[in-house]
């Protein structure tokens, strides 16, 4: 068992290309030009990954060709990364739901809370997993990374539930050579019928969702503006909207604060105030 775990962890480390924890850097802060994507990757390895990078993997097994998975990018960050490279022919981009830094934070929390404490948690890493001898990544692309926690089979479902509640989809619990899902027992990946059922449910849900959104023909905002088309709102615009939605209290509040302070001071030491 331990041997398998060691092999899997080595695999995870190699495939996921680990980064330094908590270190961040923004594209705009990098003023030097890199000759190719490998050099940029080495820079990130040394100085820390930006918060919008999910993971990096070799596109074809060659370090000259790397795919960078970006979090919530509308193409801007990808273009900025390309602009940093003298030769951008080796870089490709994809999408990732979680940043490497977020996964690193979760990994470190799980390590400090569970590892080496007789909790039957054997190892924690960031990357892909090997099931039934086949290396697989996560997400729709099968290339995304997750925080992978190997635990003892006897408590695997408990941990799957617990980590899902705490961290959501960012954590994958594995026991033996199978992924453990919350509220289920360990499910081997070669269960074809289970996967087929799952795919049918997803397909039906997708059709229902498509139909529901397609029939939204017009909407009206609070201010009476008619919106006739659904348009994706970027993450940046969402954050700006939250910032702009700040509410200012009425002008009387501070006067009321002062008058209450006065009242309380009179009450506390009437002689000095009179």
């Amino acid at each position, binding site marked *: 068992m331990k041997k398998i775990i060691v092999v899997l962890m080595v695999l995870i480390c190699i495939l996921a290309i680990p980064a330094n924890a908590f270190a961040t850097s923004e594209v705009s802060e990098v003023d030097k030009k890199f000759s190719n994507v490998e050099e940029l990757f080495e820079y990130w390895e040394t100085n820390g990954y930006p918060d919008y990078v999910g993971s990096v993997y070799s596109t074809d097994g060659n370090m000259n060709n790397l795919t960078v998975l970006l979090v919530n990018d509308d193409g801007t960050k990808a273009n900025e990364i390309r602009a940093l490279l003298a030769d951008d022919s080796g870089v490709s981009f994809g999408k990732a739901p*979680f940043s490497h830094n977020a996964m690193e934070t979760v990994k470190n929390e799980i390590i400090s809370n569970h590892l080496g404490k007789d909790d039957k948690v054997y190892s924690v890493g960031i990357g892909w997993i090997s099931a039934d001898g086949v290396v697989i990544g996560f997400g729709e692309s099968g290339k995304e990374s997750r925080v992978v926690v190997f635990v003892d089979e006897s408590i695997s479902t408990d941990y799957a539930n617990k980590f899902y509640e705490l*961290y959501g989809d960012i954590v994958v619990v594995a026991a033996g050579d199978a992924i453990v899902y919350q509220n289920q027992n360990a499910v081997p990946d070669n269960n074809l019928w289970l996967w087929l059922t799952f795919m049918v449910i997803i397909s039906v849900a997708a059709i229902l969702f498509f139909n529901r*959104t397609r029939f939204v023909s017009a*909407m009206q905002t609070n201010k009476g503006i008619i919106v006739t088309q659904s348009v994706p709102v970027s993450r940046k615009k969402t954050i700006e909207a939250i910032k702009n*939605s700040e509410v200012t209290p009425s002008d009387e509040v501070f006067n009321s604060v002062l008058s209450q302070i006065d009242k309380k001071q009179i009450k506390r030491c009437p002689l000095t105030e009179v």
Partner: protein
Amino acid sequence: MNKDELQLKLVALRNRDRSALEEIYNYLKTPVYTIILRITQDKTLSEDILQEVFIKLYQLPPTPPIKNPRAYIFQMAHNLAVDSVRKLPQFADLDSIENIVYLPTEDFSMKMDIDHAMKTLPSQECQIVSLHINGELKFREIADMMDIPLGTVLWKYQRAIGRLRSVLSGGAL
């Protein structure tokens, strides 16, 4: 006003300097009030809590030096707001308000409005988003304030922004 200036104003508060109180109030009233309002969903109650925050701050200013004066004030506001919500009759039987979801009460078109989009979030996610974006607190400070793991804060923040984007996009995502 930076961190050091805020520290100085808090020191002045210990000498009952009302102009310092007014400066701190004017600097922080909007983000603090916004966060309180996101928790209580009630303007009158929120103004009462805002008053209480600044009265307490004036009467019992923190003993310097405090590590992060801004986080200290937001922590005070957050705790008072959460306590006030717990005292409301409709939430009296609840141990935790973190999973309360304030569904939009009027027609669905209000989903287009950010305030109403925020109301569709569970209370804890709404607080995390507001403390980070409006309060400009770091995720680590929010985790300490709310006594939850940092990873949970990061995950809930990501999830909340995703949900808000989805609501604001009117189903286009």
